[in-house]
């Protein structure tokens, strides 16, 4: 792939951004060194483009015209907007942490009566105190060479650090709400870390939203460290404004005999990339990853998953659905790697796209890379329009065409939403889906 000969305006802008910000970014010497080296890695290759295999369907270099200035600290007006922003999980009783314009705002966050065994720290504070755990985790994480993640490591300003001590079962889900308030386009780099100790269990929901009509840029990363016999349910909802660029990385390292349920839901943003790097590091672990993207207009949403079975006797299921209207484009890339020692791996990946218009596009690239000889792995992909026979059956019972289609779309997406163990999450996502359906002419 090699370095591009000529830097684009956005690449030069990002270099300026980093040079100007590096002294004021949180963290001591050690963190600074990690940032510098991450930025150098990014700078060597630049923004990813079509010839970079992992990004072949999402030409970030071509589509990102410029780097927006870093968002400033939220003022009172921004905080008010954030407080009043539509909350998908309102009334569900979750513990909500507010990240406003990239900054953890303690006064808007529910930090009262933390359960025993739970600690929550703003990432900026954790970085300043140079916790060794963080600097290690910020450095050589799973994909060393991903340019978007390298950029995040270099520029990450704030986020949430959530630690659940071994054996702690958190009944109350934690909702990390990322809200962009400023209509004037800025960029935000957030980094969060969730550490679930052995035998502990937690539900973490992250939502991302912002104003329509603004070309703001989000680069966010969430690192999940899950201990042996632990369980994490992680839900990520991308409902950015209609002009937003949203790039998100989930890094998950899962211990032995653990449970990892991940659910992604995309219904916003003009250019969205959700990439996940999941490593099953210990034996006997069960992973269920599901995703749904509801796209219209000229939206482009890319879901890229790399799952690495590094230990034996693990099971993973990946189910991805995309509903694509107008001239939107859905991308799914899924790669399952089974390491030589990971015998008895049972991995199945399915990706389905429902195209609602002739111009809608879905691209999918499933891959299996298997180095063990006693495994069961499979993948499947389907792309199609709404089934006319099913539509006719519903209409023959009196249901108008638009409602019949809505029912079939709901049913299609339902399999993903049903994956959420928590009833409030299922119902909030169902509402979000119905809202999306209601907005179609």
């Amino acid at each position, binding site marked *: 792939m090699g370095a591009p000969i000529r830097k684009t305006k956005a690449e030069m802008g990002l270099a300026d951004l980093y040079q100007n910000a590096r002294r004021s970014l949180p963290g001591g010497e050690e963190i600074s060194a990690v940032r510098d080296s991450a930025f150098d890695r990014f700078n060597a290759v630049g923004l990813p483009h079509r010839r970079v295999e992992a990004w072949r369907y999402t030409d970030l270099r071509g589509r990102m015209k410029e780097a927006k200035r870093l968002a400033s600290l939220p003022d009172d007006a921004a905080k008010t907007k954030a407080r009043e922003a539509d909350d998908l999980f309102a009334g569900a009783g979750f513990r909500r942490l507010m990240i406003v314009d990239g900054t953890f705002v303690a006064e808007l966050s529910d930090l009262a009566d933390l359960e025993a065994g739970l600690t929550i720290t703003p990432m900026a504070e954790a970085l300043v105190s140079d916790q060794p755990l963080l600097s290690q985790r910020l450095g050589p994480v799973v994909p060393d060479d991903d340019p978007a993640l390298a950029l995040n490591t270099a520029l990450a300003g704030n986020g949430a650090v959530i630690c659940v001590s071994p054996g702690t079962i958190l009944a109350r889900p934690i909702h990390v709400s990322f809200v962009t308030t400023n209509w004037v386009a800025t960029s935000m780099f957030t980094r969060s870390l969730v550490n679930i100790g052995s035998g502990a269990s937690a539900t973490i929901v992250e939502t991302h939203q912002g104003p329509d009509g603004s070309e703001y840029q989000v680069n966010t990363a969430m690192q999940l460290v899950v201990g042996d016999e632990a369980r994490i349910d992680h839900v990520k909802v991308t409902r950015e404004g209609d002009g937003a660029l949203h790039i998100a990385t989930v890094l998950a390292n899962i211990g032995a005999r653990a449970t990892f349920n991940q659910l992604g839901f995309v219904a916003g943003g003009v250019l969205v990339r959700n990439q996940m790097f999941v490593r099953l590091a210990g034996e006997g672990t069960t992973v269920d990853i599901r995703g749904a993207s509801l796209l219209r207009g000229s939206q482009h949403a890319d879901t890229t998953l790399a799952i690495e079975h590094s230990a034996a006797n693990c099971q993973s299921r990946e189910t991805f659905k995309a509903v694509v209207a107008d001239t939107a484009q859905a991308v799914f890339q899924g790669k399952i790697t089974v390491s030589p020692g990971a015998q008895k791996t049972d991995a199945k990946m399915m990706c389905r796209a429902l195209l609602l218009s002739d111009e809608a596009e879905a691209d999918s690239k499933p891959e299996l890379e298997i180095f063990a000889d006693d495994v069961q792995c499979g993948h499947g992909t389907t792309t199609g329009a709404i089934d*006319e*026979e*099913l539509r*006719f*059956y*519903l*209409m*023959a*019972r*009196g*249901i*108008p*065409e638009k*409602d*019949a289609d809505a*029912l*079939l779309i*709901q*049913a*299609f997406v*339902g*399999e993903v939403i049903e994956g959420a163990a928590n009833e409030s999450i299922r119902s909030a996502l169902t509402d979000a889906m119905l809202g999306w359906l209601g907005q179609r002419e």
Partner: protein
Amino acid sequence: MTALLEIKGLHAEIAGGRKIIQGLDLTVNKGEIHAIMGPNGAGKSTLSYVLAGKPGYEVTAGEVYLNGEDLLAMGPNERAAKGVFLAFQYPLEIPGVATLTFLRAAFNAQRKARGEAELSSPDLIKRVREIAKTLNIDADMLKRPLNVGFSGGEKKRNETLQMALLQPQLCVLDETDSGLDIDALKVVANGVNALRSAERGMLVITHYQRLLDYIVPDIVHVFAAGRVVRTGGKELARELEATGYAQYQNEAA
């Protein structure tokens, strides 16, 4: 008196131009049960789809009226709201849509189209349960996705349940006996017979006479090569069982 269903000089073909129905005349009055019998390929199922308004079936000539209204000008959902019900030969499976959700959507959509008030969920559920009981459908089946994993008999009982709930004026039963053992057939036939009324007409489409032992028609038509070639009373069904359709196929050709 206006006929419930009036078909005049109907010609229809499927996408690709194959002519299936070729000059059909048929009148069904309220309170009557008509059986349409005929060999495979005669166009029986096509007739049911044309009446229900399935896309891909093109009417090239003729008229169809329901209570004097032009049925062919209506979309499938409008026809349903006006009282046309097609019991499918092969009911479709819809994963992810619970049977009860589907019933509620259909019932209230029809009410809305007719300008009637929607029924509240508890009232609707109560009504569905009462009907389900008479058809040996257990409550668990209503929660399952529509027809998914249902046996042939369960699917047909589910069709009958929908018919009883929606209370159509014209019931078109397409090969309702296919895939049914004798016990299931009796349950379904009882359900259909319970809907016999002076205000309702039925068109029972079948290849075999067996179904007509349980759903006894007033009038029997022999359908061959896209039109009615003979009409008689219920005894005609027994005669066909003995003689077969060969003579009519020759006649039609």
